[in-house]
């Protein structure tokens, strides 16, 4: 009889990294559909390009690092989709490829691969593209069917900071305006987030304080709160970036700190800096503090700690 000899527990739950990441991808699909409706077939095509790039990059990195390929765990697909969402639908493919490669190779794999990266790869890549290739992203296409000369390229946030708010809340909710292909349709983003909440894959410990803090800061800055919450990358950031496992804190307390921090920085950048959008920067900034937040919010074990060394 050939018996397996291994340590307990001998039962494991049925979930896997792949399954979780697969569900996250699924939660993003409604937004891809919305983007297709809003901005045309360029949007899903761009998403596909990013996904393909991410899979190839992750696989090649694993080969170069002499480890088993982790491309199959789908986490790079999530990264790719989220990164694609921050791009204008008419973004040149080479920019999308370059950004995705940066996300996967530099931000994720060079830091040690899944679970080891400090920065959110999609957000870091977005900022990288914005800084390195500003001209490629200067103009956002408007939704299909609108005359191009209307208010081409200006996003609602850019206009709001110029004191101009031509969109109704409903337009903002539906994404019926110019913007990054996956950031505008709040409704589908919300559907995806609620789906993940129901599947118990994410929670609201960081998301709600993030949104709440932005609301409070907008109020103090004398802005239209609802308009602020419905525009820019806030929904996507709060729903999908601030709930990323690897780059956010572990405990509820830590997540609240993270969310409030993101909200504060987003508000400060939006209203007091020259840039209309601050979500990406705020998330990257708070990413850096995650190890520290994790340390200071470590729960006290039941029965306390009896240290022998310190």
């Amino acid at each position, binding site marked *: 009889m050939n018996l397996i000899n291994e340590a307990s527990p001998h039962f494991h739950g049925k979930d896997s990294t792949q399954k979780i990441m697969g569900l996250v991808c699924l939660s993003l699909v409604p937004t891809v559909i919305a983007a297709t409706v809003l901005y045309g077939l360029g949007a899903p095509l761009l998403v596909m390009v990013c996904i393909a790039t991410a899979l190839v990059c992750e696989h090649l990195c694993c080969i170069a690092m002499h480890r088993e390929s982790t491309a199959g765990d789908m986490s790079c697909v999530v990264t790719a989709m989220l990164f694609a969402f921050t791009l204008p639908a008419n973004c040149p493919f080479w920019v999308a490829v370059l950004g995705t490669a940066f996300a996967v190779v530099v931000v994720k794999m060079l830091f040690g691969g899944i679970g080891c990266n400090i920065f959110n790869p999609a957000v870091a890549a977005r900022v990288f593209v914005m800084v390195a290739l500003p001209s490629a992203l200067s103009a956002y296409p408007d939704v299909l069917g609108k005359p191009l000369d209307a208010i081409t390229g200006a996003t609602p946030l850019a206009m709001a900071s110029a004191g101009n708010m031509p969109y109704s809340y409903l337009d903002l909710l539906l994404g019926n305006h110019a913007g990054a292909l996956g950031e505008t349709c709040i409704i589908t983003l919300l559907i995806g987030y609620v789906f993940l909440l129901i599947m118990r894959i994410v929670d609201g410990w960081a998301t709600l304080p993030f949104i709440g803090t932005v609301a409070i800061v907008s109020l103090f800055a004398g802005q239209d709160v609802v308009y602020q919450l419905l525009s820019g990358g806030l929904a996507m950031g709060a729903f999908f970036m601030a709930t990323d496992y690897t780059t956010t804190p572990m405990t509820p307390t830590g997540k609240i700190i993270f969310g409030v921090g993101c909200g504060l920085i987003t508000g400060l950048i939006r209203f007091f800096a020259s840039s209309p959008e601050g979500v990406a920067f705020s998330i990257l900034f708070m990413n850096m503090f995650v190890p520290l937040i994790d340390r200071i919010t470590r729960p006290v074990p039941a029965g306390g700690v009896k*240290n022998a060394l310190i």
Partner: protein
Amino acid sequence: MFSLHKTQGGVHPPQCKDLREYACTSITPPKRVRIPLNMHIGGPCKPVVNPGDHVYVGTLIGDGSGLYAPVHASISGTVVSTDTEQLPTGATAPVVEIESDGKMENDPSLTVPTYSSKEEFIDCVRASGAVGLGGAAFPTWFKMRAPQGKKFNYLVINGMECEPYITSDYRQMMEHAERVVDGVHRIATALEIPSAVIGIEDNKPEAIEKLSAVVEEKGFGDKLQVLSIPTKYPAGGEKVLIHATTGLDVPAGGLPVDVGCLVVNVTTASRIEQYFRYGMPLVTKTLTLGGDCITNPGNYRVPIGMSVRDIIDAAGGLAKEPKKIIMGGPMMGRTLTSIDCPIIKANNAILCLDDEAILPEETPCIRCGRCVRVCPLGLMPYALDSASRSHDVVALDELAVMNCMECGSCAYTCPAHRRITASIREGKGFYRSEVARLTQPAKEA
């Protein structure tokens, strides 16, 4: 008296308690038994019989000193050998091998014990050979002695049986409800513990009902309470149960007595009562024989020292070849590499599993935080895992590695299927030796 307190963490593995309605049956006694003398926490006993001696069921064969529990013959016959051997656990201890005379005669010198003081009662418990039958194997008499300046306020009886598959405690409660309740009452009275609670998971409503009825019938209600506790693994862990019933937390590095609790497994209490009634020490063990590969699964009463092979054969053999055999439950049990090893006092299940025991490959931690959420003791399993693997003794110290009770909840829930519990177990060993080394005064200086 006792009310339910909320416990943190926990998981819900499949319960697999299909064998609960299988009444406990005795098995044909084997031709020979091999009884190791280290079936308890503490030093192994020394054999007090020699090859060639005749023994009866219940004859003392191993005795010791300090932290130990005496060992008794489980069949009648002739002692074949008392050599020290290496056991499947890796430890070495004397093993008393007895060849049966086929009579199963009880030792005529056994008498019903009597006692007139707490000390005498504890001596009797020691003589009964009782150890923690839930799996801990801690000599029961030893923990009944409250150290200087401490006393027991609560007697907590563990009838949780939260491990999947195992139903031996459940059968004990169903078939010997009256003996269980008497045993609990006797322990509480003898040790002058003012109140006792029997904690039972709410997936065993029949047992709760039955024991409550007996308590009522006997009029023990002012002192003894049966408490239904929500089903959640590891609700039957000692510290978790203490918290659930009393709301108290055993301090790190401390013992239940530090919060005035004495925790006794429900079957242990029942077997102690049996000893006080009939004088027969602990020589048999009830266990759940389960898993897909067993032809006739069920709950069986077997002589201690009977080999797993003999038990499986006597119960009708294997239906198919198992991939994994587990002694104990799937969450905390140990795998066997050979089925020729003997059943010891603390074993309460033998599971012969097929494919369901094949675990998925380990992948990198994705920091999902689930392990932190399910740890019943509020530890950071993912961090302990990495500190254990990187041999970071300072981090292990900060993260309270020794608090971990190795319940397996974290590894069960991990989507990356990391062997967290296994690595923490190794980390504990490493930590222990490092602390001993670091805190020892430097010799060369």
